């Protein structure tokens, strides 16, 4: 009887094990990106950009050409690659410290120039690689090693919502936020990622998918509780969905008061 393969490693993923902690969802997100590249037949003309952070070694985990960036500068590196070789598919893979803190300038201007690249932005509300410090996306009251009493919004401000912030720009083509804390959410997120790469393939401008992710190690809870924590604490503040797509309208300002008094 002929065997039917129903599940295998995507071609765009390298046949190696990752260094990610147990319960971390980076591996799932890597896989979603790789599946999208396979399905769109883009692997052989893709160059990825690894950030500084937990996914610093991402270049070992994909079987595409890769470029390591300095901390926060991946969108500038992506700009350089795509402008040099417009025929390539270029994506950066960045965490919340990399993109929303040290690299805020680069991401805003890359998006606003409408660079024809895709950004996968992994938001796990904490600095992972350096050991659990407060991130720009850390939740109010969330404990981190540099806010041991929990994030105080009076001192550190409220968490930055990147998908919302960037979708105020007129230029970008596609901005969405997904999550991977359940299989159903992962499937939806993959659709966002596939839409983003499809738009890049078609030559449309800047695309970004923010993906909510868990960090059991630095959150200090088991993986199962981490997915619950994400759903309970992060989803209400970081709503999921598409924030911007081609042909979408600008956000209209609301009147001073709803009743028109």
């Amino acid at each position: 009887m002929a065997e039917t393969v129903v599940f295998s490693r995507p071609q765009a993923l390298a046949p190696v094990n990752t260094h990610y902690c147990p319960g971390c969802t980076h591996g799932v997100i890597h896989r979603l990106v790789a599946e999208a590249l396979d399905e769109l037949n883009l692997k052989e003309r893709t160059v990825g950009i690894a950030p500084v952070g937990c996914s610093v070694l991402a270049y070992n985990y994909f079987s595409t050409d890769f470029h390591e960036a300095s901390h926060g500068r991946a969108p500038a590196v992506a700009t350089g690659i795509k402008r040099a070789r417009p025929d390539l598919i270029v994506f950066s893979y960045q965490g919340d410290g990399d993109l929303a803190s040290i690299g805020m300038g680069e991401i805003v201007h890359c998006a606003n120039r409408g660079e024809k690249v895709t950004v996968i932005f992994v938001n796990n509300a904490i600095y992972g690689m350096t050991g659990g410090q407060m991130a720009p996306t850390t939740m109010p009251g969330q404990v981190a090693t540099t806010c041991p009493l929990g994030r105080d919004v009076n001192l550190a401000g409220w968490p930055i919502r990147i998908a919302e912030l960037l979708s105020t720009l007129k230029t970008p083509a596609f901005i969405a936020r997904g999550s991977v804390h359940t299989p159903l959410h992962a499937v939806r997120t993959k659709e966002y990622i596939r839409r983003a790469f499809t738009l890049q393939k078609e030559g449309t401008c800047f695309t970004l998918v923010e993906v909510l992710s868990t960090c059991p190690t630095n959150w200090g809870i088991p993986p199962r509780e981490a997915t619950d924590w994400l759903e309970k604490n992060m989803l209400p503040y970081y709503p999921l969905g598409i924030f911007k797509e081609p042909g979408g309208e600008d956000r209209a300002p609301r009147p001073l008061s709803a009743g028109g008094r």
Partner: protein
Amino acid sequence: MAKKLMKGSEAIGEAAVQAGCRLFFGYPITPQNEIPEYLSHRLPQVGGTFVQAESEVAASNMLYGAAGSGERVFTSSSSPGISLMQEAISYIAGSELPCVIVNIMRAGPGLGGILPSQSDYFQATKGGGHGDYRLLVLAPWSVQEAADLVQDAFDLADYYRNPVMILGDGLIGQMMEPVEFKERKPIKDLPPKTWAATGCKGDRPTNIINSLFLDPQVLEDHNRKLKAKYEAMERDERRWVEYGTDGDYDVLVVAYGTVARVCSTAVEDLAAQGVRAALFRPVSLYPFPYDALRKAAEKARAILVVELSTGQMVEDVRLAVQGSRPVRFYGRQGGMLASPEEVAEQIRALAESPAQEVSHG
């Protein structure tokens, strides 16, 4: 192509185009704005791309990305902007990527001023960013030489897979002189860029542009590989020009860039008055022409180093002559220039009493 009167900055931009560079990433800063302005209209004429980045930090990382794709790329800036690029330059050197960086130096430190200076010599030749690396540094003294060195720089960058810096001062950028772009061949045998990250087709292993080596033995091996490359540069790429060293002289003047032109005028003026001096002009600042300078110094009783700084290259001159000759320094700073008369006065004083080693900051 016939000779054309061009501003130094524009000649630098055109030289890059003539060298086959089709990519420029930069951020405005005085006194080099004519380079990006020129390229913003020139590059589209030849199918190239000009990007005004949001900062020098971003521009230098765009440079890094584009260089990794194997295309010829360059940026230009001036001192404070070059400081902002140091991180990326370190990554580019660590990842062994070719690119050309032009620094039209202005006076510092800090925001300093916008007038010509040579106070970034240390930064350019001794590292600049973090880690063990070197840039190949070339210093033109005329608009024609700037155009020629920019074209050579692209070949040298590709050959060594290393960033090359053109270190000019505000005078080079702003002055107008006749310049000619001749048909030229690459000055090096340039192998295909099989290392570039351009999409991994078929069975080729992935190309990864990277300077991260967590295994200390692997990093040490990488450091030694870089060191061997720098040694090859030191062996093969030293450039200098000597003026008047065939005859006899009491004072050897050492200067680079436009300051060397002032010094050559001073040397010529003094010759008519019977003061015997010669000029040694390093063109490659890294690798520094130590041996040639040591040899040229043998005939002199004393050495005068003239710079638009408080004394930076003078340290390399002292290393070159190793105490065998007194070395006097004369410098102007802050955007002030040395006149031929000032330099002549220094040479004359030194010719009359060469024994004392004095430094005039």
